[in-house]
C-alpha cells in the first residue's frame, strides 16, 4: 500500500473515538494542572495567598500528579494507539481492550484527583513514605498504572497479530517504537506497582503496621527515571518518523532509529540511584555504577541529534539549497507542526546538559532538591516533550475529528509556541539561578531565617510568577486551539504524516527485531544494577515506619 495514501485515509469513526477520548483527558488535564502551576508561582511570589484556606501543597500535588502522571500517560496512550491503528491496525477485540484501559485509567485518575482536592493526599506526586495519604489516593494510582498495562499488552498484541499476517516483513518503524516504549513502561512501572500494591495500600488501610521507607523510595525511583523516558520516547517517535515527512524528506535511517530506541530501553531503567545520590543507606559504589549506566543514554541521544539534523539537511538539499547552511533557512518555519517540536529540540540542549549535571555523582550535591531541578524538568518535560506533543496534536486532533488545521489556527499555534518559549525561558532560567543560590524546591513562600542569602534568591520567585503567567496564557491559547480543532474547524482531511523510507535505503538487520535478546539484556542490566544493593538495603533495614498523617494535615 502506498504510504501517502494511507496517511490521508481517516480512521473509522469507532477507532477515532477511542483515540480522541485520550486527547480530551489530556487537554482537560493541561488546563487544570496549568492553573495549579499558575497559582503556585503566585503564592511563591509572596504577594498572594490562596482563597478558601486551600493549602499550597494541595495544589502542588494536583499540579504534579495531573501533569506528570495523568496528562502524559493519557496523551501517550492515545497517540500510540493512533500510531498502532495507522501502521498495524486494530481489531474489534483490541479496541475494546483499549476502552477498558481508558476507563480504568480515568476512574483511577478521578479517584486520585478527588482525594487530593479534599486535602487527604498532600503528599506530592512522589508520595514518599511515611507520609500517609488516604488509601483512595494509592488505589487510584494503582488503577491508572494497571489500566496503562492493559493498553500496553493491547499494543503488543496488535504488533504480534500483524507480524503473523506479514511473515518475514519487518515491523513498521512506529509500531516497533511504540512496543519498545510500552515494554520499558511495563518493566519500569512494575516497581512502583509493587510499592503501591504491596507496601502502600495495606499500610494505609491499616493491614500492616509499618513500611520500609528506603525500599519504597528505591522502588519508586526504579520507576521514576524510566518514567521520564516514557514521556520522551513518543517525542522521539515524532522526531524520527513524523517530522521528516512534514519537512518533505524521508527517514534518515530505519535501523539507526531502531538501535537508538533499543539503547534507550536498555539504559533507562538500571539508573534510579541517580535520584537517590544524597541518601543514606545506599553504598556509594553502587550509586556510581548506576551513574555510569545513566550516562550511557548520551549515546542514543547523540545518535538522535545527528539523525535529526541530517534529515533537515538532506531534505533542504533535495530542494536545491547547496550553500553550507542555506538549507537551514528553508525549513518550514511557518508550519507549526514543525516549528513547535523544533523549539522542543532546541530546549533539549540545555535540558540535556542540566541532566548530565544532575546525575554527576558529586555535582548533584550542589543542586539536589533545589529549585534548579524544577527548572531542569520544566525544560525537558514541560518544553521539549510538551511542545512536541502540541506539535503532534495540531495534526492528530483534526485527523481524528475529520477537520483541518486552518492557516489561521496554524498561525495561532506559532504564536502559542512563541508565548511558551518566552514564558518558559523566564521561569526556567529564574529557577535554575535560584537553585544554584540554594533555594529549595517544593516549598511554599518562606523567608526562612530572613538571612542575606534568602535576599539573593527570593526575587527570582517574582520572575517565576511572571514566566508562569505568560505560560498560563499559552495554556489558554492551546486549549482554545484544541477546542477549535475538535469542534469548529472546517471539515476535511488532515494528513497523518508518517515518513517513508528512501527507495535505496539499506536493509534493516533482522537482529534489531530480536525481542528476546533486547528484553534479555535489559533484564540482565537491571539485575546487575539492583540485586546486590537491594539485598543490602533489605538486610540492613531499620525498624519500619508507622503512617504519619498529621504532617500533611490529615486528622
Amino acid at each position, binding site marked *: 500500500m502506498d504510504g501517502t495514501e494511507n496517511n490521508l485515509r481517516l480512521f473509522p469513526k469507532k477507532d477515532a473515538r477511542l483515540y480522541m477520548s485520550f486527547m480530551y483527558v489530556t487537554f482537560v488535564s493541561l488546563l487544570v494542572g496549568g492553573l495549579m502551576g499558575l497559582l503556585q508561582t503566585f503564592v511563591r511570589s509572596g504577594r498572594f495567598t490562596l482563597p478558601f484556606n486551600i493549602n499550597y501543597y494541595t495544589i502542588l500535588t494536583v499540579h504534579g500528579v495531573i501533569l506528570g502522571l495523568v496528562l502524559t500517560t493519557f496523551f501517550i496512550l492515545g497517540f500510540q494507539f493512533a500510531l498502532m491503528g495507522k501502521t498495524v491496525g486494530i481489531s474489534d477485540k483490541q479496541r475494546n481492550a483499549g476502552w477498558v484501559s481508558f476507563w480504568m485509567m480515568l476512574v483511577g485518575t478521578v479517584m486520585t484527583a478527588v482525594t487530593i482536592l479534599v486535602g487527604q493526599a498532600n503528599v506530592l506526586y512522589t508520595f514518599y513514605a511515611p*507520609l500517609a495519604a488516604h488509601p483512595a489516593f494509592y488505589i487510584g494510582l494503582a488503577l491508572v498504572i494497571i489500566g496503562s498495562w492493559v493498553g500496553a499488552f493491547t499494543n503488543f498484541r496488535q504488533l504480534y497479530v500483524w507480524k503473523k499476517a506479514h511473515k518475514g516483513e519487518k515491523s513498521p518503524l512506529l509500531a516497533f517504537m511504540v512496543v519498545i516504549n510500552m515494554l520499558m513502561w511495563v518493566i519500569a512501572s512494575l516497581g512502583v506497582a509493587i510499592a503501591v500494591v504491596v507496601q502502600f495500600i495495606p499500610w494505609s488501610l491499616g493491614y500492616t503496621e509499618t513500611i520500609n521507607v528506603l525500599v519504597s523510595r528505591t522502588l519508586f525511583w526504579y520507576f521514576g527515571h524510566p518514567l521520564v523516558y516514557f514521556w520522551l520516547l513518543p517525542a522521539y517517535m515524532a522526531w524520527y518518523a513524523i517530522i521528516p515527512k512534514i519537512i518533505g524528506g524521508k527517514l534518515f535511517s530505519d535501523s539507526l532509529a531502531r538501535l537508538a530506541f533499543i539503547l534507550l530501553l536498555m539504559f533507562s531503567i538500571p539508573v534510579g540511584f541517580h535520584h537517590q545520590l544524597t*541518601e543514606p543507606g545506599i553504598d556509594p559504589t553502587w550509586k556510581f555504577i548506576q551513574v555510569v549506566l545513566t550516562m550511557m543514554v548520551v549515546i542514543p541521544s547523540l545518535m538522535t541529534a545527528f539523525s535529526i539534523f541530517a534529515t533537515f539537511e538532506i531534505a533542504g538539499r533535495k530542494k536545491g539549497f547547496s550553500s553550507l547552511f542555506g538549507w537551514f533557512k528553508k525549513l518550514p518555519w511557518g508550519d507549526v507542526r514543525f516549528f513547535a517540536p523544533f523549539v522542543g529540540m532546541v530546549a533539549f540542549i540545555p535540558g540535556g546538559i542540566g541532566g548530565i549535571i544532575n546525575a554527576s555523582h558529586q555535582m548533584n550535591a550542589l543542586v539536589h*532538591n533545589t529549585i534548579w531541578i524544577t527548572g531542569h524538568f520544566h525544560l525537558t518535560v514541560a518544553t521539549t516533550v510538551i511542545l512536541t506533543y502540541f506539535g503532534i496534536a495540531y495534526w492528530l486532533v483534526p485527523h481524528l475529528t475529520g477537520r483541518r488545521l486552518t492557516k489561521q489556527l496554524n498561525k495561532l499555534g506559532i504564536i502559542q509556541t512563541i508565548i511558551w518559549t518566552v514564558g518558559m525561558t523566564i521561569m526556567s532560567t529564574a529557577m535554575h539561578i535560584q537553585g544554584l543560590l540554594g533555594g529549595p524546591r517544593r516549598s511554599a513562600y518562606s523567608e526562612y531565617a530572613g538571612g542575606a542569602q534568602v535576599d539573593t534568591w527570593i526575587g527570582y520567585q517574582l520572575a517565576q510568577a511572571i514566566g508562569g503567567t505568560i505560560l498560563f496564557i499559552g495554556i489558554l491559547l492551546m486549549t482554545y486551539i484544541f477546542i477549535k480543532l475538535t469542534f469548529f474547524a472546517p471539515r476535511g482531511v488532515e494528513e497523518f504524516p508518517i515518513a517513508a523510507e528512501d527507495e535505496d535505503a539499506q536493509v534493516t538487520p533482522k537482529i534489531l527485531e530480536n525481542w528476546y535478546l533486547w528484553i534479555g539484556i535489559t533484564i540482565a542490566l537491571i539485575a546487575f544494577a539492583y540485586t546486590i544493593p537491594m539485598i543490602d538495603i533489605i538486610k540492613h*533495614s531499620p525498624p519500619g*515506619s508507622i503512617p504519619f498523617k498529621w504532617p500533611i494535615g490529615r486528622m
Partner: protein
Amino acid sequence: MHLHKYEKVWLTFGMASLVIFLLIIGFAAFWKGTHPQSHLETIDQNNVEAHDSFKPENLGLTEVADGKYKVNIVASAFNYDFGVDKDEKAVKTIRVPQGSTVLFTITSKDVVHGFQVAGTNVNMMVEPGHISRYEAVMKNKGEFTIVCNEYCGIGHHQMFGKVEVY
C-alpha cells in the same frame, strides 16, 4: 548496519568525551573521596536518644579538636533540634570560625526530610531509621541558611536553621 562517515566521527567524539568524563568523576569519587553522602548506619527512629550522637546533651555544636567540630541534629516535622543553650533556649544558629572542619550528623524521628546548608556542599536526604553524615570545610565567611529541601508536610517551608561562619 550502515553508519555515515560523519556519524562515526560524531559518535566516536561523543563516546570518547563520555569516557573521559566518567573517568574524571570516578577518579574524584574513589581516589579523592568525594562520594555524595552515603552513610550506611541505621538507628531505631522511635528511640533516637539511645544513640550517643543524639542524646539531648550531645545535640548541637561540639568542638572535638582544634578547628574540628561536630554538629548533631535531630530532624522532625517541622524542626531541626540543635539542642539548647545555657538559658535552656532552643539553638537555631550554629557558629563556627572560618576554615573549620564540621561533621554534620543527622537523623529523623518521623518522616523524610532534607538538610542543606545553602551555598555549601552540605546537602543530604534525612530518613527515618538512617543516619546521614557529611563533613565539610567551611571556607567562606558569612551566614548560611539551612533549609529542609525535601517535602515533609504542610509546614515544610518553616523548617530551617542557620550556620554562621565568622
